């Protein structure tokens, strides 16, 4: 089982999908305006699920910032660990 999701890992994952450096990722960005599409979100969800953070597409998709994503993910991660 892969290592549990950390904020660092979360940033790195986003950076990969946003074609940015991890430190360039602005957590206040709106995922839509950052250029993410549903397939990328689904792919990220699959990846994070493997790291023990189980969220649904709808839950992530309705968030309006990456910070809200992290909030949700860390809540789920705590719930499962």
């Amino acid at each position, binding site marked *: 089982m892969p290592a549990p999701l950390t904020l660092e890992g979360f940033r790195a994952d986003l950076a*990969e999908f946003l*074609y940015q450096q991890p430190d360039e990722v602005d957590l206040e960005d*709106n*995922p*839509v*305006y*950052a*250029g*993410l*599409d*549903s*397939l*990328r*979100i*689904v*792919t990220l969800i699959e990846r994070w699920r493997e790291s023990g953070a189980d969220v649904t*597409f*709808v839950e992530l*998709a*309705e*968030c*309006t910032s990456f910070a809200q994503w992290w909030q949700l993910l860390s809540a789920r991660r705590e719930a499962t660990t």
Partner: protein
Amino acid sequence: MSAPNPRRPLLAAQEGIWTGQQLDPDSPAYNTAEYVHIDGPVDTTVFDAALHHVVAETEALNVAFAADDQGRPWQTDAPAGDWHLHTADLTAGPDPHAAALAWMDQDMVRPVDLARDAVFGHALLRIAADQYIWYHRVHHIALDGFGLSLVARRVAQVYTALMAGEPVEDSGFGTLAAVREEERAYRDSARFTKDRAYWTDRFADRPPVATPAGCTSLPARTFHRRVADLDAAETEALRAAARDLKATWSEALLAVTVAHLHHLTGEPEIVLSLPAMGRLGSVSLRVPSMVRNILPLRIAVTASDSLRDLTARVSAELRAGLPHQRYRYEQLRRDLKLVGGQRRLSGPGVNIMPFEYDLRFAGHRSTVHNVSAGPVDDLSVNVYDRSEGAGLRIAVDANPDLYDEADVTALQDGLLSLLRAAVAAPDQSLGDLSVRSSTVTVLDGGPLPRPARQVLSLIADHAARRGGAVAVEHDGRHITYAQLFGAARDLARRLAARRVGRGDLVAVALPRGIDAITAILGVLLSGAAYSPLDPTAPPVRRAELLDNVRPALVLTTSAHAADCTGSDVLALDQSESGPGQPTAPAPAPDDLAYVLHTSGSTGRPKGVEIDHRALAHFVTGATHRYGLQQPDRVLQFAPLHFDTSVEEIFLTLCAGATLVIRTDDMTDSVPAFLDACARLRISFLDLPTAYWHELAYAVSTGAATLPAEVRTVVIGGEAALPERVDRWREAVGTSVRLLNTYGPTEATVVATVADLHDPSLAPGDVPIGLPLPGTRATVVDGELHLLGDNLAVGYRGDRLPDATRFSSLAVLTGAPRAYRTGDLVRIGDEGQLRYLGRSDTEFKISGHRVHPAEVESALLAHPGVRDAAVAGQVLDDGTRRLAAYVVPDGPPPSVTVIRDHLRATLPAAMVPSAVEFLDRLPRTSTGKTDRKALATPALRAQLASLGAELVHTVAAVWQQVLGVATVSAQDDVFDLGAQSLQAIQVANRLGTELRRDVKVAWIFQHPTPAQLAAYLEEEALPTASGLPASLPADSVLDPDIRPGGGSRTDRAPHRILLTGATGFVGVHLLAELLTTTGAEVVCPVRAPSPAGATARVHQALDAHLISLPDAARTRITAVPADLARPRLGLDEELFSELARTCGAIFHNGATVSIMREYATLRAANTESTRTLLRMAAVHSTPLHFVSTLSVAPPLTLSPEVPEGFLPPHPGLRHGYQQSKWAAERLLEQAAERGLPVTVHRLGRIVGPAATGYVNERDFLWSVLRAGIPEGIVPDLFEEEIWTPVDHVARALVHLCLGQRRPGAAVFNHAAAAPVRLRDVYDWLEEYGYPLRRLPLPQWRAALPRSSEAAQSMLAFFEATDATDPTGVTSDDATGPDLRLGRIRAENVVGGLHGSDITCPPVDRDLVFRYLDHCVTTGTLPAPAGKRGHHPSRSK
């Protein structure tokens, strides 16, 4: 709730769907559906309860939609209430799953009435013990794909809870109001402005949108779908490649789609349509609703791009566009003015659904399958992620108006093979991969049965071994092989004596016959090649050919020798002294055998050079393929200058069979032809397809019988009509071999052969088969290429543009030499070729490639169509259109019926906009359909002033709806900012105003008022105005008819052309012309021969009691002709001679019948006028046209009849009036262009005052003939213009040949007072016929049906009743008044001023003279009442 059902606006996405539905309100295409296959038992009752629960809590499913007066749609609450789940147990059937799919298909095609019906439907179908299918349909206006999935998930949840007996959790669904509010807020946001700026900037140049179909169409009611799965390994390979490219698999798939579309279209940029869920960050994530958006994605592409290059470009474009994905696609189209007509923002769709549903129904797994995602504009590639890691499913949907199923298959196969290739080699050029993954099919005719031997050596063998066998028969003569070969050798020696031999070309200008065969063989034996020339060809043509081939010698008969000046001539029928020379050795394979002429692309004939190798190969292959054998007796049908003669002669003689040359009279009639074949014991018939069509027809109707000895029939020369093939097979069966051959002269006579007698061929299927043994063929870009030793050496004189048709074909290994045929073909599933048409007749219309042949075969499938030709035409204004020329089988069906028939099978763009009926199709001198003649539009669908009013109406409605000051006829309303809603309003208003159905789709298809009016005109004609569909087009004069060089103003022409000279007026015109001028009068007359024509003219003169001195009669030249035919049925030479020599043209001929419809009169009455105008234009010859006052509008429409040309008017009710009016219209345009033309409108023409002769065909006299014996006459009219025929002839000739009043072009011959019918009836009574006068209906009722005259009268009235319920025959006593207003006749009066010509009054005396004539001839009974009128007349 207190408010009774408030109405709410639609969401933007819903409005898009609503508008789409309005385009075709009865279309079921917006039904979307999926089914969930549940793997386990389902409790039907609980499932039903769960569904009802979910439906009740889903707001979007409890709605109704309706438009207000303005056409604006609203949504209201409408509880679905009492609906039922359809349940069925299908397990008893053989294939329950298929039965379930069939049930869904049926359910899907039911249109939904958005105002009344539930927008959804459910079914639960049991397909196995523990297997269920839950089918869920919903109109797209209520839910999009994501909305559907929300509902499905919720159903699974509720069902599971109910099954477990647990309480049902809250749905968590948000409200539609929240979605509406979010949308409203977005529209007012800064984000909206930003998004709009992005898209309008990105698409500011409105890029062209490329699609494989090359054109657009409105969404159809159905779509083609082909589904293919990528297995798990392939899918994983795609994912891995995408990861390597730092992209998603969807982006890689988009890149491959772009590359494939580029490969198919060659366009440098592809614009895709990407459906986007439109829910990220939105409340609608939890609201079942319709919010889906579409993103246009433009990607530049070249063939050298690799998957890596292109994927990066796709990713970047998406990254740039996705942040702006909330901006509505419909809005962007409006912003960019890309609405209506052919405009579009983006092309094929790629719909990627990354969600796998993993729904569990009380713990049982399920899989979800899409049934329909809504209508398909063009193409749509739908990609579904199948559950459990099974891989991707790729469903390609296509609009059936643009693509057929084979297209879809090819598209999907091409896409998938490119995907596999690209994933395996992401750095290779996708263009190369495309070429490599598509394969060129080579069709191979198989090996020759034996090595090809030279034809001369084969024939020499027969002469040596079976010298006594009959080689050739003709008209009672025959010649044996030994004699034939001996005679040929003698000729070869004579040629050698003239130093003609190897390398030379000898022209053979001989009629069919034994001598011709001998001559051909003699030439070949001399070592020279032969070139057949038509001995009857016009001298000009012959000179051209001789100039082209430059023969060493011309072989002919002494009769034709004089025609071949400039060439060395050997007349075969003149014996030559002097010893012959020994002949050359046998020709080598590379030596030419013959040179045959075909028409070149430039119109100049080109000589095709065939060498002995090609001839020998062809003979060997074809003899084997046809099964031709020694005992066969083969008819030699073709003239020698057709290459079919090569087939007939050499196949027969090389096989040692007997060649039977047809005699000229054999083809007089089909029954006579087949009788002759029987008599001659023909076993093998080789016929031109056009002639065989006649044969097949005659045989199928029993008019003729195929002789029992005929065992093989070979046809070729043009595409065989499926209908005739079917008839033939029905009548003849499949025991007689029917071989359909195809081949250009350039590939030695025949290239491919199909067995049409094959019983396994489907009806209507007419393949051209497979290549001959020893040859191959391939199809490149749809065009047939021929390969092998049968190919010609090339063209004589090597004309460069044509020579390029022979070239090496690089797509095949070894790049073999090939002949590019210019013929478009298709390879059928079983590998046989089907002919589609000429690539040069392929016509692009609205960007759609149309093969006339395809449309023709669809036309021919209609039982009322006997023959048909379709041509693409380009009108003066550059408009392109398809015109269909139809030869009806019996009475012509209506144009609407024909169009409806075509619409059922063809895409809209392929349905001709003009349909015209002809008696026969124009043929070229070689008997093929004359496509050139058809492509030059004789009729034009331009908007004549007929449509002007309608244009105005359409423009006015647009003006109101758009709220702009002016909309002109040519304004594109969508450029003026029109939007879908307004299009719908215009359709409604126009519909009200015009009191007819106006479809919203038409508004989009015809974006200018002029276009829409033109379309409405055509659509409307049969129902609205009553004018025939082709009338507006027929009444437009071809632009090239203009005054030619020099003008002829001489008043004493030496030669005058007079049409209709045998008719009532014509014969008097003839007499007048012969009497008052010294000119020769040329009379085109329907007759089989010049002698027959002359006889008819003299008979007519005699019948009308016209006496002329013999000297005058010798100035009559009658020529056989037919006004209803192209060029009046005159040959080209005579036609141009008449154009050159005639000093005046009197066009008086017409088919006069008030019973016949326009379609059957237009050729003789209208088109003949066009033809004569064309003749007159050459030297600006004056043309005088005899017309009728009945073209004028009645008094109710116009107080007077002007002596001028007439605009169209509603009084044009009968075909005859219409045909004459259209002809006048042509003259009007000719006059405007400066041609000296006059129009003479006549009233009722009565017998000559001098003799009292009565024209018995006259309508009024027919009425009297029926009524007088019964003592009853009808009140037909009040008064009429009556003119004695001899007077009108004098007046007309004087006006035409005398001093012409300036500006006078139209003459109303109505100088005398009208005759009152009341007076006529008084005189009849006075003459001795007691009469009762009855209103027309009573008269008809009282008329007994016994007498012949009465019968034909009644038949007339019944016929007109059917077509004209409000016309003269109306039962309504107050029916329309058809009287004319005051008839202006100043031009006539002025023109006759100073002459001694005055119109004799039609009075009691004259009527009595007519009655005397009728009594004398027995047409009327002698009056029983008062007698003794003769004395009164003789006073």
